[in-house]
């Protein structure tokens, strides 16, 4: 076991249900500092619910979690952002009618202080802060590789650029943990490769990443540890290679008995050599996560 101090985020028996539907049941997991932690599972497995719990959009029904040594059970999204959790959304939620630069400037809100008085008087401190905000926003645009688009409205950016802008906006909050909900969804192969490089760059800068992704190849190539959710339960956790061979995981993805799972030649697989799990591809219009 790793010493707890190395754990940035630790979930303990987290439960969440909506009416009679159990979205998360007794999920416990922990994420080490500096890791890229993958969260996978079939549609409706509870991945996004877990995200929403950790980022404060949902209040959990049982259990709790620790982030950076602080315990949380009920917490507002902005306080968790303050504590250092930033996220992106599965269905991109940029401020559509603001420019790319303004989107990131909103992300700086948390780490800036100018209030009414500063805004009205535009005193030296307020002006300096505004300059620094613009400066930082430009750096982040550059960092994610869309600096040419700074004046473009978020809604006019291409899909891949929007994904990147969302990451830049999240980075503007100076997170310890960056939670990405299917960042590669809808990207083509080239964009996915570029995204992978970006995520590695972010990790190298010392930010821990929690990643929901359907592109199993991306997960396998990128993550240090992976957890698999199915019907709100964690069915496997560990290094990507172990998880991929886990019979329960194979069963969850292919819906068959574990003993029947063939070795990469099922009709689901598009790339047999990469194993059964890699054969899974997200269907259009999936939403529950």
């Amino acid at each position: 076991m790793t010493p707890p101090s190395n754990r940035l985020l630790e979930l303990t028996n987290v439960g969440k249900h909506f009416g009679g539907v159990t979205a998360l049941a007794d999920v416990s997991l922990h994420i080490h500092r500096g890791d890229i932690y993958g969260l996978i599972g079939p549609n409706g497995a509870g991945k996004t619910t877990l995200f929403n719990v950790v980022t404060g959009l949902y209040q959990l029904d049982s259990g709790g979690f620790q982030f950076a040594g602080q315990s949380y059970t009920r917490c507002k999204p902005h306080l968790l952002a303050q504590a250092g959790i930033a996220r992106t959304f599965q269905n991109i939620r940029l401020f559509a009618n603001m420019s790319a630069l303004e989107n990131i400037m909103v992300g700086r809100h948390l780490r800036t202080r100018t209030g009414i008085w500063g805004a009205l008087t535009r005193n030296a401190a307020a002006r300096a802060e505004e300059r620094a905000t613009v400066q930082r926003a430009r750096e982040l645009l550059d960092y994610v590789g869309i600096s040419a688009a700074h004046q473009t409205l978020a809604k006019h950016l291409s899909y891949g650029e929007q994904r990147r802008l969302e990451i830049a906006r999240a980075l503007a909050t100076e997170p310890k943990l960056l939670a990405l909900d299917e960042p590669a969804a809808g990207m083509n192969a080239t964009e996915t490769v570029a995204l992978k490089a970006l995520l590695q760059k972010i990790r190298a800068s010392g930010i821990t990443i929690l990643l929901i992704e359907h592109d199993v190849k991306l997960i396998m190539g990128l993550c240090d540890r992976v957890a698999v959710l199915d019907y709100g339960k964690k069915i496997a956790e560990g290094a990507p290679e172990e998880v991929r061979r886990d019979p329960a995981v194979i069963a969850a993805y292919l819906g068959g008995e574990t003993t029947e799972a063939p070795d990469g030649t099922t009709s689901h697989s598009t790339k047999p050599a990469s194993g059964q799990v890699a054969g899974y591809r997200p269907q259009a219009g999936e939403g529950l996560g």
Partner: protein
Amino acid sequence: MKLHRSSGHLTLAIALLALPFIIDALFGHGWVRIADFALLYIMLALGLNIVVGYAGLLDLGYIAFFAVGAYTYALLGSPQFGLHWPMYVVLPLGALIACGFGVLLGAPTLKLRGDYLAIVTLGFGEIIRIFLNNLNAPVNITNGPQGISAIDPLQIGGFSFGSSYEWLGLRVDDVHLHYYLFLGFTLLVIFVSRRLEDSRIGRAWVAIREDEVAASAMGINTRNIKLLAFAMGATFGGISGGLFAGFQGFVSPESFSLMESIMVLCMVVLGGMGNVGGVVLGGVLLVALPELFRNAAGPVQQMLLGKVVVDPESLRMLMFGLALILVMLWRPAGIWPSTQRRREFDADDSVLHQEQETVYDASK
């Protein structure tokens, strides 16, 4: 360029200063009075613009804050209680109390949005009016439907804005003086609006309007920022109300009906939500045009038909409704919208279709 701009500002300043006398010379005293009211309404509309235009919170009871400001001034500066507090105390106090009411309205409605928020604010506006209407028993505070009269004029020291003065052979009447006073306040409100709009706070308001869930995930304390919008808007309403009471010398609950709230909202929407210039334009148009119409409708009918067929008063509302529909059809973002709002109404370029906030609603 800079010189060009400052000379433009100078021209505008001279025009604004000369305006009441020009209006007076061309159209008469009554129209200067209308200009005074236009300025009061512009202040109101700018206050509402912060709530509706920037933060995107639909408030249908906004006139309540105007009422609070007006009654604060009326109660503390009239024979009603025998109090005659000076303007420089009562006006800020009215603004402060209105601000408090803004927070009072904002706090319980924080989780509401759209139509639901509109209904609650509408109710709030009516509650304030009905309170004012009924607070004459068992203890008479507001004088009920009769209203409060003989309110002190706006005055500072010995200088009263309600009197006439003669300077250098130029006769300056109360309507002119009020014009300058209101103009000063309006410019202040414009200044505050512009500065807030282009700041960290203003960006947070727009972010909440665009996507509240994302805004909160980015660390914006949506509760405080929304309350701030309500409080700022209400403060402007309170100032305007105090000025109104001092100008009019009389307040009664019927000045603060739902129709007034809707009127102010129309100024914001028609002029251009979120754009200070558009809102000012909306205020001017919606005060001036109906008056113009009222004055013109009778004579025009007389001339064309030989008699007055339709009462100009009812015709006025008809034309008003028609104008609203036409503007909404042709310029849905308002006559002079902010660039941002115009983008929103550009149907063609909705590349990103924002999905509705299922996340938030499911969490309740």
